[in-house]
């Protein structure tokens, strides 16, 4: 028994938002952190940009952060073959790791003198630097990560059974059965 650690699921630091051709920012300097299990209410008068703030939450980010990988696989496997569903969910799950790798590669290359900062990209001549110093290493890292995940999955006998028949947290009650897609009926 122990106290569960409070993890920030959604965090905004000094967030601002502006509409095109609106002239000025509609949201300015918003800082908030919403933790796992917390429930918040957003209040304000009409036109105070409650919707803008809600829409600024990237739906994908929230989806990937709060939905466990097994649930994503389960959702995709309702419309896709299990293997494709597993691949899609795994890639989404490993995206933050790949982004961290990308950031570390970019920082390393900038220190080495590569002109790959956003301000350098105004000059199209620097685009080749992005290709050689950032895109190629990131693609190599991606291939390496794919190989490692494939090896780990193989070590866990992935692919021995065509379709998964049960999911974490799913309890098969009396009288219930799984259909040929592994979905409880």
């Amino acid at each position, binding site marked *: 028994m122990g106290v569960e650690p409070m993890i920030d699921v959604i965090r905004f630091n000094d967030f601002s938002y502006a509409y095109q051709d609106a002239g000025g920012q509609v949201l300015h300097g918003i800082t908030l952190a919403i933790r796992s299990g917390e429930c918040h209410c957003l209040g304000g008068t009409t036109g105070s940009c409650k919707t803008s703030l809600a829409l600024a939450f990237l739906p994908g980010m929230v989806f990937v952060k709060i939905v466990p990988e097994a649930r994503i696989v389960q959702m995709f496997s309702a419309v896709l*073959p299990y293997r494709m569903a597993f691949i899609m969910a795994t890639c989404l799950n490993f995206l933050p790791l790949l982004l961290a790798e990308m950031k570390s590669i970019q920082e390393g290359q900038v220190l080495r003198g590569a002109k790959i900062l956003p301000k350098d990209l105004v000059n199209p001549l620097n685009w080749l630097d992005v290709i050689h110093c950032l895109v190629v290493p990131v693609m190599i890292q991606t291939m390496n990560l794919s190989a490692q995940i494939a090896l780990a999955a193989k070590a866990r006998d992935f692919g021995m059974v065509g379709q998964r028949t049960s999911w974490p947290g799913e309890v098969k009650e009396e009288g219930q059965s799984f259909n040929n897609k592994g979905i409880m009926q």
Partner: protein
Amino acid sequence: MTHLPLKESLFLGFCAVFILLFRVVLRLHLHISGHAMLFTVFFLFLARGCVDYRGASSLTGLLAGLGAFALGLGKSGPILIPAFVLPGMVIDLGALLLPGLFRSRTLCVLVAAIASATKFIMTLAQDLLLGMDKKVMVQHAAFEAGTAMLFGIVAGLLVVPVIRRLKAYGLVGQPMRKTLDDIQQKEGKKE
């Protein structure tokens, strides 16, 4: 996809996720439509160039489309899926008919332009559903496809050096077997 090794399948999945990522993160306010085609065509080309599988690009497009649909990107709903799959199919067809596709900048640009031009069909389909006037619909679709083609051509130009570099490292071939560890081992042996 069952015939494709898991490693290659995961690489295609990552290419699809990259397409989604750049669509979300790099929301460039260029006031030019079609700029998302730059990353879409680039990663679809990379998928087919790195994985020697006939439907690699279409499969990446399908995964990207389903991902975009599931994550709620864009405004088109299920129409997003063919918007990613059609350029992928063109690239797959190009790779099938033109064996030297990934070595030639000219061929890459040509195929990228045709792949980007599929935006014409998608825009036309969307406008048709909106019930727009036929003349305006064709003009709008032609404009959208034209700008998408410009960005697609840039993607076609950028993809050749990447595949060339990956080939030089021995990472791209039949099949894509080597990894970073293999390269490091090889370099270690040389030393």
